[in-house]
């Protein structure tokens, strides 16, 4: 009977991940067929998904961590804005080098993680309320630093941002010239983070503690896990990733302004949910989240390539997908409960 139960649970989760990957493939293949003449089939188009979403991938990884322990963080978008703005400010107005800007970004993230994590883990305030306040705080602080847009002209920073890494394959453009495909260092950083968090979740004590807490906090406590400390650590790590992701995002946009990365928290949450992370905690992988981000990127590039649809369609389609996956999760959860209840009766 026990074996049967775990099988149901596993099949439900693998099912969600499979849907995600299938959805991505279908979307991308449809894009390749429909927009064949606009270069959708070129390898560079695929790599662009990673290039433009490197920051979001890192932030999504962090979001997955806290969602596994049944938390959530909706402050990441404003942390990103704050990181971009303060990086831009210290480099342009204070003449500080790019290394220090990176350190400052990480510190901002960690600070958000410590404060929010403490309030959530130790004072047991709902994560949503805490991070909602964090979101407004970050957005407001961005405006306190500057209400004007600051574009970054720091040499070292721009060198990082524009350093192309060429790959051993490519495509031929319309004039018949061979162009090698390329990526930026940000993509490598993002993929390294994905690998790192995957290893962390799968093969370390800390990772197993996170799943245990998400599955059932009470039993995790009884197993002797220091739930509060682990939760705090998770939020600090997530804050660090938000800071790093914000910096990668900044390398991509090379500017800081108040409205930046608006709604990014929603992108990160939907990427995690679409990637199979359960809102009820205990289940989730960063590989799924990576695919969630890729789906978001595909929707964006499909809509921009199409040309006549406005940018808010991205949000509407993404919200609809999020809704679909949330409902799907809840239905899978409900059927699981029913089966468990039936097995109890028998």
């Amino acid at each position, binding site marked *: 009977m026990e074996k049967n139960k775990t099988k149901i649970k596993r099949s439900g989760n693998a099912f969600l991940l499979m849907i995600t990957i299938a959805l991505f493939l279908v979307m991308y293949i449809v894009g390749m067929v429909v927009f064949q003449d606009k270069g959708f089939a070129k390898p560079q188009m695929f790599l662009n998904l990673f290039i433009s979403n490197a920051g979001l991938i890192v932030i999504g990884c962090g979001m997955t961590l806290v969602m596994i322990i049944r938390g959530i963080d909706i402050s990441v978008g404003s942390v990103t804005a704050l990181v971009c703005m303060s990086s831009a400010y210290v480099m342009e107005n204070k003449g500080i080098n790019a290394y220090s800007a990176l350190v400052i970004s990480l510190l901002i993230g960690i600070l958000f993680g410590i404060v929010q994590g403490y309030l959530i883990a130790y004072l*047991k305030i709902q994560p949503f*309320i805490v991070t909602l306040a964090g979101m*407004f705080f970050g957005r407001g602080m*961005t405006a306190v630093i500057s209400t004007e847009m600051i574009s970054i002209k720091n040499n070292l920073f721009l060198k990082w941002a524009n350093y192309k890494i060429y790959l051993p394959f490519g495509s031929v453009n319309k004039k018949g010239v061979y162009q090698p495909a390329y990526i930026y260092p940000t993509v490598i950083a993002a993929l390294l983070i994905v690998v790192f968090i995957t290893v962390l979740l799968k093969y370390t004590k800390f990772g197993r503690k996170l799943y245990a807490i998400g599955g059932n906090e009470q039993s995790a406590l009884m197993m002797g896990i220091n739930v509060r400390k682990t939760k705090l650590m998770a939020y600090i790590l997530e804050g660090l990733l938000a800071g790093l992701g914000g910096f990668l995002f900044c390398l991509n946009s090379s500017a800081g302004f108040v409205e930046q990365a608006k709604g990014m928290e929603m992108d990160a949450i939907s990427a995690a949910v679409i990637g199979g992370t359960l*809102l009820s905690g205990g289940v989730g992988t960063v590989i799924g989240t990576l695919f969630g981000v890729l789906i978001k990127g595909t929707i964006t590039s499909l809509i921009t390539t199409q040309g006549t649809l*406005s940018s808010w*369609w991205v949000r509407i389609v993404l919200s609809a997908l999020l809704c679909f996956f949330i409902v799907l999760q*809840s239905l899978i959860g409900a059927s699981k409960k029913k089966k468990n209840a039936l097995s109890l009766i028998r």
Partner: protein
Amino acid sequence: MKEIKITVKNITEHRLFMPFLCLAAVLLVNVLKTPDFFRISMNNGVLYGYLVDIVNRASELVILAIGMTLVTAASGGQDISVGAVMAVSAAVCCQILSGGKVSANTFENPFLLAVLMALAAALLCGAFNGFLVAKLHIQPMVATLILYTAGRGVAQLITKGQITYVRVENYKILGGYIGNCPVPTPVFFAVAAVLIVYLVLNKTALGLYIESVGVNGLASRLVGLNSTRIKFLTYVLCGGLAGFAGIVASSRIYSADANNIGLYLEMDAILAVALGGNILSGGRFSLFGSVIGAYTIQALTTTLYAMNVSADQLPVYKAVVVIIIVVLQSAVFKKHITELRMKKSVSIESGR
């Protein structure tokens, strides 16, 4: 002496004491900073002054706060889509009134039709949220997150990405003044909304049901309450009230601006509920507490504006206030305080 002590204790332990204290504190700061804060004068036949401005500007927030209180009480979660729902209802209302044009100088369609359609759209949004929360048991804030982001997109879609203007004097009445009445119209709407909801909650058993579902949904179901339906109903009500607030807000600027109507108001509404002494995890609630909370927030906003804080920087202060309130409310913090007090009394006794 003892009697006085008891009366003082009764007053300080009253549910509305803290909300009133907060309001008084904010107003006091104003009195110290601007001496003529309480002066109300007549300019061009309408009332004029800081207080009138606060009461007027707070109207939409009051309407939202009522809905938010009910949602919080019944489901123990908050609806963060109310600002977006305001934008949707404003977009529907203005788009119907202008007949699809960017700017209209006459009503292209009946006024009543536009208002009813806008309310219907808002109720639909509320029903969507309610369905996810009550029927599918999804955490309220996650469920409403969907509309929080999609809502403004939908509003853009309705207005075709433009700001729709309705430059008709009759439309400006809702957010302005009726005839020669010196009191701004939104104030009446706020008062009416509070009264109607209060009467509905107290003349029927609905208020009691909502509290009971919020305290323990399972237990209420066992005593025969349809807790799913009651939760659903509170979300529909909240959506409808948000829609109403959206119409008033759009009338204030006689246009539908999908990007800015109701921006950051969800935060203010949650803050109003918290300031009103309501527990954010559901259960017993005080409608009037939230109303006072809403006026306090508007007073705070007006004060900060008067101190030359820009609109973009306001969220910092509000976020700090929210954190302070939730920390003070948190069970762990309260327990800590009680323990400290007990230690103190123990040490006094043992010292004797």
